């Protein structure tokens, strides 16, 4: 079963956008290996003929009535923002730049 290497945990941290510390990476490596060992037993019974379930209470898709309603105001939508300017969210630059 999967054995997590340090590099794999670092890579997963990158994918999940969490700047894990060295200490956290080491600890997660040990913990995830134990957890993975335990949960991988699901494969024992997951044979090809068993269909998967995503929603335990499947509903038929239906259309709701097309009725207009008032959404959040701009001020409400911005009320929790870390940084705003002129009624907009302010984000850091998207691309890194070489100086």
């Amino acid at each position, binding site marked *: 079963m999967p054995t997590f290497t340090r590099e794999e945990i670092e890579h997963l941290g990158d994918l999940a956008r969490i700047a894990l510390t060295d200490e956290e990476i080491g600890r997660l490596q040990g*913990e995830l290996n134990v*957890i993975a060992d*335990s949960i991988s037993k699901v494969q024992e019974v*997951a044979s090809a003929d068993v269909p998967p379930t995503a929603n335990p209470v499947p509903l038929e898709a239906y259309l709701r009535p097309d009725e207009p309603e008032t959404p959040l105001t701009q001020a409400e939508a911005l009320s929790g923002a*870390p940084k705003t300017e002129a009624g907009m969210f302010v984000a850091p630059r998207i691309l890194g730049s070489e100086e």
Partner: protein
Amino acid sequence: MTATNELVQLSAAEMAAKVRGGEVSSRELVDAHLEVIEAAEPSINAFLHVSADEARAQADAFDAKSADEKAGLPELAGVPIAIKDMIVTKGIPTTAASKILEGWVPPYDATVIERLKAAGMPILGKTNLDEFAQGSSTEHSAFGPTRNPWDTDRVPGGSGGGSASAVAAFEAPLALGTDTGGSIRQPGALTGTVGVKPTYGGVSRFGAIAMASSLDQIGPVSRTVLDSALLQEIIGGHDRRDSTSIPEGPRPMAAAAREGLKRDLKGMKVGLVKELSGEGFQPGVQARFDEAVAKLTEMGAEVTEVSCPHFPYALGAYYIIMPSEVSSNLARYDGMRYGLRVMPPDDVPQTAANMMAYTREAGFGDEVKRRIILGTYALSAGYYDAWYGSAQKVRTLIIEDFNKAFETCDVLVSPTSPSTAFKFGEKMDDPLAMYMNDIATIPANLAGMPAMSVPAGLSDDGLPVGFQLIAPQQRDEAMYKPAAALEAALEESWGGPVWQSLKTPWLGE
């Protein structure tokens, strides 16, 4: 505090009767509970925020209504309630017990909150939980653990330890929780309270902070079975803002609970789930469970053992599906539109991606990071079929086990939790040991079945034990009847409710 004590120890239905009879006002109920909250919180820490002003204003607004207006409201009108801080409340801080949402004040109400407000039920405050409802002890709260009123050196269970402790300690007559793998029922078991996970889709999740969307369900916390039934009828029923909401009204649960109080279970078929007892369950827990089963038999129920052979795979499937959904749902905490933003250190490029990584590193606790990383792995290319795909198949097998059991049984039963309340720190360094707390509660979440925990008495360590009942999908009332019957029969043998053994120094006794 004598008058206060008498008032707060009533059931919610009894409080409501006094309100209707004009003996007590909603404002007096709110003030009595705020008084208890102030006295109890230094030792219990069930609340992350007490919304005293809002609660008083809501109570006054209810009291000012005409008799005609009040007559049109649900039975619990005027009775106050506490809300797990996993459910958004307009104008009242909502944190999910995470630093990443510290100080966030939502601009909208969850559907369940709108329904409580429409029912004239004042909101006392927001209760503590494991961060983003991830944990079984409330120790993973970023704002300190909640203590168990039965022994303040022990955990109240989790993730909804705050709601359960608040109700157990008489700080609130009712609370709302969220249950993804047992977060309402296991704290109910550990604090001697009633906790209900409705059928998946039975109560709107709009405004419930998403953890694992195919498993999450909002439900009631109370001290009596009837109180939970009355509350579930208020919060339940279709909501077009939740696409998984079942397009039907709430089930007749209060009538079923009242029927149960007659203690006649003749003809009812009760299934004992073989895989959810015995090994791994504390002897004291098993003993109280067996006694409760005997009570069901005495009341005329036919009890048989049923096997659900795939239940031993439920924990594994849950710890693949849940983290996968967590990793996806919690991607929204990116420091852009609300919540915490932490910029990278000066020697790291000041980009949006780096800001996100440093924000999430600073804002999430250990357990949340563990689950996000595990879920990111389970969903990554090359492993998806082996992990997520297999887990979804196990989910099918577990639903089939349930369906087969319900061919011959009206309701299934098991102990709610394998152990009574454990000490702080006991399981914090061993995630797997912590996960085992939910071994009996997880199958119902995976299958969308309604399930509840009711007090089964005290174990040999003097701590509460929970008795779990599971009903078929969309038949929530089927568990309320035997639950109410069991509650009545047990209380008769104890000479009163389980909490008569609870020492409550915060009530000045």
